[in-house]
Structures are given as structure tokens and as C-alpha cells.
């Protein structure tokens, strides 16, 4: 699709509701910047382009992505260890390269998510297998922390109890205890 203003290749697609009608507008990067579309709160695009009184502007999720990612920041050279995706790639395609990207570009993710969804924390279903793994990993982390503390404070009786508990969880999970955990 081409930019509605200058005819160059459009990068930003915007949907607005104007007087009950849905208006779709396509803009190239330059025109989008010039018209201030990259500021998701401060524009009335339909009014500007179509000469009508707009309703409340509706920012599409994609638009929010465009705005947040285009909005500058540092660390241009950063690269995802999972897939080689860079921050430049993110700015260009506004999508991610792999699951690890969400860790690599955590800061950018958080910025992008502002205002995109109803919330920023998942409240839905969890894969059955991962739920167990997730809970187990957390429990083991906690027990190992306490074990370290017990050893440091020479509380050997408690340490032995904790060690047994850790072993049991590991046996239940894999069938064998990790040898590194043995004294």
C-alpha cells in the first residue's frame, strides 16, 4: 500500500473511527513523523487528512508499536543471542525474531506494551507441562538458597533436611538425583 499523502511505500497503518465510519490511513515513515503520528496521544489524523471532526482517536496496536519503537533509545548494537536479531531489526520490522528476543529486548518490550493491551501481565492459561516445571524450578531455587544459608551458618541438621528435600524433588522430576548435589 502507498502513503496517502506522498505516494511512497507506506509503513504506518492507522485505523480511526470518524463519525461512526472506519477510516484507514496509510503513511510512509517521513509523513508519519511529520504529522506527529509517532506520538500516540497527540494527533487527530482523520481531522487533518479528511477535514472532518473525528471522534476519539483510536490508536491501533500496530500504531502503538510503531510509535514506541520509533521513539529512539540507546543500544543500537544489541543482538539477540537466540537468533541474531538486532535492535535495528526490531525498529524496522516491529516484530521479534524468537522467544529469547523478549529477554534480550526487555526494555523495548516494556515500552511497546504501554497502552497496547488491557494489562502487562499474563492472566490466562499456562501450558500444563510448563506450569509444573515453573513451580518446581521456583521451589528448588528457594530450597537451594536456604541450603546455602544453613551451611554458612553451620546449621548442619537443617542442611541435611533441605538436601533430602531437594533430592526428593529431583528424583520425582527426573528419576535420578543430580550428583553435584551430593555431599
Amino acid at each position, binding site marked *: 500500500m502507498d502513503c496517502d499523502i506522498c505516494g511512497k511505500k507506506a509503513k504506518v497503518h492507522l485505523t480511526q473511527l470518524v463519525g461512526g465510519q*472506519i477510516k484507514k490511513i496509510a503513511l510512509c515513515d517521513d509523513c508519519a513523523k511529520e504529522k506527529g503520528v509517532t506520538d500516540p496521544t497527540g494527533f487527530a489524523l482523520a481531522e487533518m487528512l479528511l477535514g472532518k471532526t473525528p471522534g476519539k482517536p483510536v490508536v491501533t496496536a500496530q500504531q502503538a508499536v510503531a510509535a514506541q519503537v520509533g521513539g529512539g533509545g540507546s543500544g543500537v548494537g544489541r543482538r539477540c543471542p537466540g537468533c541474531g536479531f538486532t535492535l535495528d531489526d526490531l525498529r524496522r520490522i516491529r516484530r521479534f*525474531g*524468537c522467544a529469547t528476543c523478549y529477554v534480550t529486548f526487555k526494555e523495548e518490550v516494556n515500552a511497546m506494551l504501554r497502552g*497496547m493491551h*488491557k494489562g502487562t501481565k*499474563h492472566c490466562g492459561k499456562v501450558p500444563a507441562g510448563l506450569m509444573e516445571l515453573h513451580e518446581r524450578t521456583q521451589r528448588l531455587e528457594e530450597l537451594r538458597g536456604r541450603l546455602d544459608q544453613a551451611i554458612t551458618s553451620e546449621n548442619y541438621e537443617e542442611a541435611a533436611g533441605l538436601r533430602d528435600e531437594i533430592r526428593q524433588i529431583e528424583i520425582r522430576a527426573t528419576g535420578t538425583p543430580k550428583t553435584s548435589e551430593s555431599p
Partner: protein
Amino acid sequence: MMRFTTLIKNPADWMTGEGADNTIVLTSRIRLARNLRGESFPGWAKKEQRRRTLEILRPAVEALPCMKDAFSQELDDLNSVQKQVLVERHLISREHAARGEGSAAVIERRQSIALMLNEEDHLRMQAIRPGMSLRAAYDSLAAVDEELEQSLEIAFDHELGYLTTCPTNLGTGLRASAMLHLPALVLSDQIGQVLQAVNKIGLAVRGLYGEGTESLGNLFQISNQSTLGESEETILRRLERVIAQVATHERNARDKLLEDDPEMVSDKIGRAYGVLRHAWIIDSKEALNHLSLLRLGGDLGFLPNETVKSCDALLMDIQPAHLQLHSGRKLSPEERDSIRAEIVRTRLQTLQAPDIRSTRKKDEDDQNPEML
């Protein structure tokens, strides 16, 4: 494995409203986006990586109980008309049809569950049902999802939920939508207000055909936009409530039109009937708009109730790729318009002219068979 021609031969139940009331809400659709942990997302993956992902996904998907004897094809092995037919049936997305190597579609025999492999995400799963049945569609897809989790390592983060290529799908990865036929709201100029209200609570509304401002055939799709921060249950409940409200508005608008301006309604339906029965050249836009009114006539008692079903089948069959599949060859736009008119005429051959008089007399009972 099921062949393409076998898959396409019959319309799915959800296309003709079999076993459900689909007069206003035609279909309910659920989509879930899922990805594999440790594999690049399809749009970023190199060709070999896409291949490898497909080799992991495909056996798992084909082993699903619902996919017994299913249709399963790599998109590269389908020609452009076949791909377009699947798009017109909403079984794959336009984006998916455009992807080549390493992408595949696995479609259940009754076309009610369709999985796209290596679309924008590794897995895009869809369930469609006739009428208002988002819940049933969700339940059937959730079962598929849980089945696949047994054999696949799905990318998931306890904070962000299911990880997707585009952050607009994070969290539940759930897009629920319904297709609504709203001719009376359009005829009575109330559609703007209604859509604005729907939009205001964060739901998206778009026309079924075309990206433009107008909706062809008075068909609209309502869907959730937000996928993160709410449970599947909350998302579905809100959509169900809003869709039911819009459907009630449409029902009231139909009753009111009939009461206030029966002459206008009769004229619209009569003209639609005349054109569809006697046109020799008709483009899709004109056909869709007249079929929409004929469909309304079927519901209001001007035409037999089965007219609704005939219209639904035609909505699918008059689309460009379906016409080319029907003719067995590529068609120029002009040829399509003649063949489209021919199919419509043939299907409506036995349809009697709208019964205007009896609808004028009719009381509350919309579907009294004696009046038809």
C-alpha cells in the same frame, strides 16, 4: 490424506449455518497463536530453520485425534487458485497464502478446525462454528492446544504469557471474532453509532470484504484487540455480551423497519430479487449487496426461510477463486462476472418472487410457515 477437491467439495456446516441459528451472527471464530521455544519465528528464520520447524510441527499436528484423515499440504504444493480458495473460505490467511517454502496447512475434514504452520507465528490455530458459539469454538481449540503441549515445547513466559512474533498477540494469543449480518442497522443509519460504541470498549470492528471504509454485503466482524492482561474467560465473556447486544439491536431494527417503512423494505428486497434472478453480468460487489438484502428477505418472511442458507452458500461460491475452481480454468474479470451471474441465476431459479402482501399483514410471529 484428504485431497484438496474432497476437502472443498462440500460447504462446511459453519458456512451454511447447519445446526445453529445464524440469521444475524453467521459464524464464531477463535484463533490461538503459538510458537516453539528455541526456534526462530517464521518471518525471521532462514529457509532451513523453517524447514526444521515444519518437521517438528507437522507430525505433532497430524497426530491430533481431530486431524485423522485430515487435509495436510505444504503451500508450495498448491497452485494459486487452490490457495486463494482456502483464503476465501477463511481456512488460511492471505498472509499465509503468500508464504512459500516451509509453510503448511492442516485442515480437519469438516473444515471446522484449521492449523497454519509457519504463518507469522509457528502455529496459528483456528476453530470456526456456525451462529453464536464462541465458547464451543474455544473449547474445541483449547483441547487441541492442550494436546499439542504434550509433544511440543511451546514458548511461554510467566510474565508475558505465550510469546508471539508480534507483541500485539502476547499473553493469551487469543483472537475471538464473530461475523455479523447487520442490514437493518445499515438501512436505518444506526450502524455508525453501534460500531462506535463497540470500538469504544476496545473491540475491533471491520467489514468482511475489502480493507476500505465500506462494508460489502452489510457483513461486519467484531473481535478483541487486547490479548494480554486478561484471561481467556474475561475476553470471551465481554465479546459474547457485546455481540449479543449488537444482535439484539439488529433484531429490533428489523422489526422497526418493517413497522415504519414496509414499502422501502419491500422495494429493496424486490429489487435485489429482480437483479439476482435476471442479471447476466454481475460483479462481486453488486452480487454481495443484493444477496445481503435477499438474505434479509428470507429472515423477514418475504422469502422462504431457506433463502438464508442459499445466500450463505452463494456468498462463498461467487468469490473469484471459487468461480475459477468451478470453471476449472483461469478467468478474466469479465468472464467471472458472467459466470457469477449464471451461478446465481441457476441457484435462485426456483425461488418465488417475494411475497409482499403477506408480510404486510403479519404480526409478531416472524417465521410462521403459513405465511411463507
